[in-house]
């Protein structure tokens, strides 16, 4: 038995007089199943080979897990595919590929009925390292709410259930942030959810217009792109959007989020002499401020 699992069982026996490990096991199984379904916490990437003229693929998977929902499917070039998972491990793609390729599917999974030699459910070890209290509170709530047991206590069950639900929400948020602290605050628009991971495939290159196709760009790259945008004239923004909508969209998305951080540099750029290197716009402070506001509003409006 894993050390953390042993600690969990110890904690439960300390808090629930009269409980036996064999009574903990089915409750732990139910709590973990709910935890993974609610939080998307257990994601697995599975490769599968496509065949010409075939749109349905049943994935083969050896880990002790059941599928919950499909997060994404990407083709051999990492382009997102709008696939579905109607039942079990069956992946249905919108069109039949022309050749044999290796695609990847990212799937949220949860525990199945498999147990280890001691009768405990099989699940990833990191779960208890990261969400120990959540699981503990969930098991406590369910154990205390059982009928006719030495440890039955409806009042305390309610207390632990509240703690558990709060922990579940926190875990769900942590998973959605990919367990980062203070990371990117922006997120993809609503219409990309459940269908595509992003607007642009990971690994795409920077465009000639200065836009960045990869959504995971650095602030420096964004500033360079915005500088290119400004060099075309503030009021050329809409025209530039028409010419390169994908690039403009991506920049605007980041630009609106990073506007506060970028503002001093951009204002300085606007006010710099047009003859400087690199050339600035040579605007007065008031004109720069006005155009900054115009640009920001346009970027934010587009990002929405």
């Amino acid at each position, binding site marked *: 038995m894993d050390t953390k699992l042993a600690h969990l069982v110890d904690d439960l026996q300390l808090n629930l*007089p009269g409980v*036996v490990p*064999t*009574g903990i*096991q*089915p409750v732990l199984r139910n709590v973990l199943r709910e935890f993974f379904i609610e939080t998307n916490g257990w994601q697995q990437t599975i490769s599968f080979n496509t065949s010409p003229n075939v749109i349905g693929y049943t994935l083969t998977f050896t880990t002790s897990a059941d599928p919950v929902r499909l997060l994404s499917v990407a083709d051999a070039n990492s382009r997102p595919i709008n696939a579905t998972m109607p039942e079990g491990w069956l992946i249905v793609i919108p069109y039949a590929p022309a050749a044999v390729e290796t695609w990847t599917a990212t799937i949220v999974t949860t525990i199945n009925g498999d147990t280890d030699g001691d009768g405990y459910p099989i699940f990833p070890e990191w779960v208890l390292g990261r969400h120990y209290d959540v699981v503990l509170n969930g098991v406590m709530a369910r154990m205390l709410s059982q009928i006719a*047991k030495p440890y039955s206590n409806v009042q305390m069950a309610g207390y632990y259930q509240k703690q558990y639900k709060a922990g579940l929400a926190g875990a769900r948020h942590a998973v959605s942030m990919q367990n980062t602290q203070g990371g990117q605050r922006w997120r993809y628009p609503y219409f990309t959810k459940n269908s595509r991971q992003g607007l642009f495939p990971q690994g795409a290159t920077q465009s000639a217009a200065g836009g960045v196709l990869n959504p995971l760009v650095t602030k420096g790259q964004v500033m360079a792109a915005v500088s290119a945008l400004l060099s075309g004239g503030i009021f050329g923004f809409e025209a530039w959007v028409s010419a390169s909508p994908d690039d403009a969209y991506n920049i605007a998305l980041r630009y609106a989020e990073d506007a506060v951080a970028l503002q001093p540099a951009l204002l300085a750029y606007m006010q710099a002499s047009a003859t400087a290197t690199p050339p600035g716009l040579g605007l007065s402070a008031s004109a720069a401020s006005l155009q900054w506001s115009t640009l920001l509003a346009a970027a934010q409006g587009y990002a929405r």
Partner: protein
Amino acid sequence: MALDTVQDYTKEVRRILQDTVAPYRYTDDNMLSAINLGLLEARRLRPDLFMNATYMQTNASSSPLRSSVPSFNAVGTTAVPMDPQYRVALVYYMCGQVQIMDEETTQDARATVFLNKFVAQMLSLQS
């Protein structure tokens, strides 16, 4: 003292009932009947005590709860599959059950106390 085997349980029940000198008032058959019935009662009240597949007479792939409850046909060194926390309760059940069977001395009230004690220990913190 340890309460691991059928022999241990029988010895403890006889000590509580002051029946420690052979020939015993309560025979081995009485004891076996009591412990077998006690396990059936424990299974009814606390199925979680019987979730361990290794205790049950089945293979591990099917649920232990759908298997038969263990029973014994000899007072020997066969282990009794009962969690340590509830072994005393089983002893009390055996005490009550053998006294229920007793027709020579009517001790139903005392037997009832033992049987109720068993139920209370199985379902509550009461000792």
